[in-house]
């Protein structure tokens, strides 16, 4: 009998991709742990990865559609046949000169992802396979500090000194999507004398452990932070030395003028937090050795750019930039380029977003990736002919999901589909796979090689992690990366002269004196061992055009309105229709689920009532329910200006009386476990950005999961 052994690898139950170790016995995966080498933890999703690996719903061979799109009828085909279809169609599109009409919809694990290389070589687009999420946060940081951040860069909570302040502003930091060691680090920091402050319309698990819970009105964060900035700036409580040395000339003076009337009293009226609270927290922050701020759902709203901006200004005026406990700035690891380096599609010519009525104005916000709903638009505009999804589920993930489902089924006058080819890589049948022409059985994250390079990796600074196979894949599963490399060899061979994925990673690792084999030998992780603080001092400045911090975003002065400084108003989707739709819908996330669809929803342990989240009731404040004559368990209709769902009520004291809470990510229609119980998708309630809510495009944010709603019995 083979002895059991622990193999280091990387989790992929959510986008945090924590460093884990996996125990294998006789070729069978048994257990998962956080990798101690990375001071790592594995959360409940990570632990339940074993159930995902052995799900009876795993796809094991390629499938070709035989019914209509969406019907879910398939026949088994060989990989050879599948590859030939792919080569013919994808190669054909490029030969037609329409390579840019191909989009691959996947989560870019890292810039080393071979799929990304294929796209750049081919000339296609990448779609994040996610809503923009916190894109505004990323853009805000790039504009202000010039960093090249990873998709989420929480403060280094393990570095928070005694007396430091940790502000979670619409952020379920205990709920995953960030390194699994974050909850421990926040609590450790609190236990050594840092303060945890939670701004949230719901009494979250974080609030339960916080020193201070501030039940703010959703999207009131901008006003709240502006109120604090006002107090700090007008009373000389800001970090004068830091501001004088590092803020671009003139910006602070402009800020002073702008902020003069953003008094705590005025801001209090917007965010529904007493002015005294705003002042108190501002003063605590001024005294504290560090302040770290994180937000996620709080920055997925229509005023996201404003909040990102206010948040950045706050960090700058309090001097919390790249300091222990403040906002870290990422660093780059010297990876070697794989020659020849493909140029990629010409984004300047084609535009970051090829479609939509406000393409040019939208470009100002420089969102890095396309959101899912643009796919529907692009199909209708004739700008998208081939769509490849991998580990993503656009048919269920995001607002506009119904429009996506309609668009992929649309045909031209001759009955030909507008979308010529839809390919889906998945480990289990999904809502999206049901529409696909080809469904290709992917390898799970326990079965494949992947080099993960993060400019900033939470628990050990910037570095590299290796995902390596710990068990054999079932059936004929192939990793999408292997397929893309083979396609590359067939269609753009000059860029794919390496043998396979491992050889490709070996080239990139050269600069570090490493190879996949060596990385394996040193335990699958490499980092310089330090994250480094105040790197700008040594570098003599920041990555912004001026080398200084930019508080004033001049290019936004002439947007349809002046947005060169953050506007304090609530998110527009919360301001409209207030009379007809009296409640604000708060979408929240639990630690059990990382999105929509199979990965966590089809996992029995993550849906089990004892160890997971089974159903998705609508949370309502008990006083509100009493006033409306509603009781626990009542089945009600929840209506937004653009849709309605049936959902059961759960009464609680842990939510603002003017809000209703709904978990995000339910509503699956396939998967033996995923379809169980009552679970509704909140996406149906969200106005489709591309079609029904024209201002979504231009305010610099998106209401991914936010809207006003009403209850009908």
């Amino acid at each position, binding site marked *: 009998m083979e002895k059991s052994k622990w193999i280091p690898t990387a989790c992929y139950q959510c986008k945090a991709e924590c460093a884990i170790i996996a125990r294998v016995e006789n070729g069978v995966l*048994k257990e998962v742990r956080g990798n101690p080498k990375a001071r790592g933890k594995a959360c409940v999703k990570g632990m339940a990865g074993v159930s995902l690996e052995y799900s009876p719903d795993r796809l094991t061979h390629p499938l070709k559609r035989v019914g209509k799109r969406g019907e879910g009828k398939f026949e088994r085909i060989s990989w050879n046949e599948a590859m030939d279809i792919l080569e013919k169609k994808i190669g054909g599109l490029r030969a037609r000169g329409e390579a840019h009409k191909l989009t691959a919809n996947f989560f870019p694990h890292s810039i080393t992802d071979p799929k990304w290389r294929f796209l750049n070589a081919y000339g296609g687009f990448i779609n994040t396979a996610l809503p923009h999420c916190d894109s505004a946060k990323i853009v805000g940081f790039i504009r202000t500090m010039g960093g090249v951040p990873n998709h989420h860069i929480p403060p280094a909570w393990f570095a928070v000194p005694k007396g430091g302040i940790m502000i979670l502003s619409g952020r379920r930091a205990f709920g995953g999507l960030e390194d699994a060691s974050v909850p421990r680090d926040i609590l450790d920091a609190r236990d050594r004398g840092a303060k945890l402050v939670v701004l949230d319309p719901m009494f979250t698990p974080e609030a*339960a452990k916080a020193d201070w819970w501030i039940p703010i009105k959703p999207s009131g964060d901008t006003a709240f932070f502006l109120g604090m900035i006002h107090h700090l700036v007008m009373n000389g409580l800001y970090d004068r030395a830091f501001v004088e040395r590092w803020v671009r000339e003139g910006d602070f003076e402009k800020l002073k003028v702008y902020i003069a009337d953003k008094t705590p009293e005025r801001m209090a009226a917007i965010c529904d937090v007493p002015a005294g609270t705003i002042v108190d927290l501002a003063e605590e922050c001024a005294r504290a050795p560090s302040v770290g701020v994180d937000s996620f759902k709080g920055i997925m709203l229509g005023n996201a750019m404003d909040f990102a901006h206010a948040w950045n200004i706050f960090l700058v005026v309090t001097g919390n930039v790249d300091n222990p406990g403040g906002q870290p700035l990422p660093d780059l690891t010297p990876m070697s380029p794989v020659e020849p380096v493909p140029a990629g599609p010409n984004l300047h010519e084609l535009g970051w977003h090829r479609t939509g009525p406000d393409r040019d104005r939208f470009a100002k916000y420089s969102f890095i990736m396309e959101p899912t709903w643009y796919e529907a638009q692009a199909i209708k505009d004739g700008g998208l002919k081939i769509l490849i999804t991998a580990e993503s589920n656009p048919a269920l993930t995001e607002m506009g999901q119904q429009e996506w489902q309609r668009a992929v089924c649309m045909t031209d006058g001759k009955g030909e589909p507008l979308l010529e080819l839809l390919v889906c890589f998945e480990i289990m049948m999904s809502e999206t796979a049901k529409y696909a022409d080809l469904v290709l059985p992917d390898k799970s994250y326990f079965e494949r090689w992947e080099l993960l390079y993060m400019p900033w990796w939470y628990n050990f600074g910037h570095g590299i992690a290796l995902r390596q196979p710990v068990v054999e894949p079932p059936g004929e599963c192939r990793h999408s990366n292997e397929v893309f490399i083979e396609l590359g060899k067939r269609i753009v061979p000059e860029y794919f002269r390496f043998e396979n994925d491992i050889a490709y990673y070996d080239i990139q690792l050269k600069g570090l004196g490493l190879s996949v084999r060596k990385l394996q030998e040193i335990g699958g992780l490499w980092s310089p061992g330090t994250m480094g603080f105040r790197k700008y001092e040594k570098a003599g400045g920041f990555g912004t055009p001026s080398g200084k911090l930019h508080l004033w975003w001049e290019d936004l002065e002439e947007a349809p309105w002046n947005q060169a400084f953050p506007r304090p108003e609530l998110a527009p989707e919360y301001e409209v229709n207030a009379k007809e739709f009296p409640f604000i819908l708060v979408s929240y996330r639990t630690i059990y689920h990382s999105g929509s669809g199979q990965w966590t929803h089809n996992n029995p342990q993550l849906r089990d009532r*004892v160890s997971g989240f089974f159903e998705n009731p609508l949370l309502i404040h008990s006083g509100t329910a009493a006033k409306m004559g509603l009781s626990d368990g009542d089945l009600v209709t929840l209506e937004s200006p653009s849709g309605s769902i049936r959902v059961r009520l759960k009464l609680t004291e*842990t939510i603002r009386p003017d809000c209703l809470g709904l978990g995000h990510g339910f509503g699956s229609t396939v998967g033996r476990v995923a379809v169980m119980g009552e679970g509704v998708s909140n996406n149906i309630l969200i106005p489709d950005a591309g079609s029904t809510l024209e201002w979504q495009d231009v305010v610099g944010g998106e209401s991914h999961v936010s809207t006003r709603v009403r209850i009908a019995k």
Partner: protein
Amino acid sequence: MKQLSLMIDLSRCIGCSTCIVACRNYHEIIDHTRAMPNGIPYYLRVENRERGTYPNVAVDSWVMPCQHCPEPKCLPSCPEGAIGKDAQTGIVRIDREVCNGCKTIPETLAAEKTKAAPCMAHCPTHINVQGYLGLAAKGKFPEALALIKEENPFPAVCGRVCYHPCETHCNRGEIDEAVSIRAVHRFLADLDGKAETRYVPPVRDRKAEKVAVIGSGPAGLTCAYYLAREGYGVTVYEKAPVIGGMLTRGIPAYRLPRDVIEGEIGAIRDLGVEMKTGVDFGKKITVAKLRKKRYRAFFFAVGTQVCKELGSEGEGLKGIHPAYEFLIAVNSGKPPVMGKRVAVIGGGNAAIDAARSARRLGAEEVFIAYRRSLEEMPAGEEEIREAEDEGIRIETLLYPARFIGEQGRVKAVEFIRMRLAEPDESGRKKPVPVPGTEFARPVDDVIVSIGQETDWSCLTPECACTITGTGTLRVDPVTLQSEDPDIFAGGDAVTGPRSVVEAIAAGKRAAVSIDRYLKGLDLRENRERDWTDTAKVQKEKYDPAKRAVMPLRNPKERSGTFDEVAAGLSAEAVMGEAARCQSCGCACIQSCPYGVIQYDGGRGYSHKCDLCFERIHVGDLPVCAETCLTDAITFGEKELVRRKVEDMGKEVLKDLTRESILYVR
């Protein structure tokens, strides 16, 4: 004994369930290829407690593993002796080789067997019936009795007079006849008849607080029993000259021999409970006075001592006796002289007992007149049958319109016939008189048994608590606390006339509340297990043995004396009868107050957390402690863990401090 233990830090536990999944994976109690939500075994579960109202809310979360109790209830409940407490570590373990899943058939009934068995669920005191039947079937009588005594200090009394809801709901009844649970119960209890060998439970550390119990019926005495076991000083005040309430003063000896009651009261006295008779509480001794004497809590269990009146003409005549007063006289050995013809008005237990007592006092012709039909009669079936066997006639749909007297003494009753109309608020069909059907029946004595109510003069003006419209004390149904925080009440005084076992359950409930109240803890927290979902088990293969019949003395012989009617079963019969139990659940699962034992239907055994016995022996942490996402779980020797808590300067949350698994904040 060393006790290894977990400590869960409430200020760090976020209730994320990581440990639960890690634990399942490690112990391989999940089949990943087949698992479906809400049916996967678990050794740990998350509990949450929300407090306060918006915006001043608090939520605590913690995980709940096996508590490895110092006196584990599961251990003695196992008929196979498969459960042991490891002497080295204090860890409670189930031996898989020995456990047979309580006569399980693998792969079947898995979901049912983890539910509460209906006998236990429907018993107001929730005795582990399946557990003691299993032990009795093997001849382990003392062990079986200990299981009963854990939940009920009056086994011999209940073994005789309980209305046995356990039998009424027994799943075996759906196949042929219910298991004769009460007869087994009685046999076991009677083994403990001798005072010298009687089991008296140990008293926990003595406490300074004193509690007054008013009324010495089953409710009062049960409350006294459990509080005394916890170490409180308890004084019982009884108005009557004898202790026992209706047990001694109401229920006649032919059903409940005096020495049986005395024996069980004696065991309570042996625990150090002080009992004072002849004290009419509310007169010389009052709540105000005792509060001054540092009595910190009061339990009013005064029952229903006042007989209701019919209001019919002539009710004041001589020879008309309120039933309870009549029974008190009978039971105190000074019975009134009975004439030849006796009419008893009413349909409850007391009416039957009055009739049968009258018969025993020499009345030749006794009949019971009840205003509804036989189906509505509240008296137990057995009692009705036994009364009829003794020659007592039961006439239904009759109501005494008036009593006809001669020289102040009753001589006849004028009855009117009734018919049943639509059900009234009690849900029973309402009897209405049929005009013109009056007729007279000559009698020598009449006993009126139409109900009882409470005399609340015991509550003096300093008490703020209030009485409901139906004359009972207003209390919280979960905690039995009245509007005076230190005054609790239960038994018939709160429910109106009911039963012995419900009174016992109320006494127990009050004792838990009073204990928590005196410790300053939340009275409502985690009070009740859900007893509504009970196992439905009907095995295809079962032993077709017939229900054992309780031998009764012959009616002719018995109706002349107050000696006990039912003779009891032999040891052999008891073992046979107990073996008829179908084992709807698993005895250990039934017994666990924390609901942490799992049942593996596939392999047919029960299993639970063993603190990762194998791992800790090689110096590893239990998986939960190792994997805890927030490092909220500490593991070690109980005393060391406790000391660590104190070192951390954290206040131990008492209400969550179980004996071995500690919770800190």
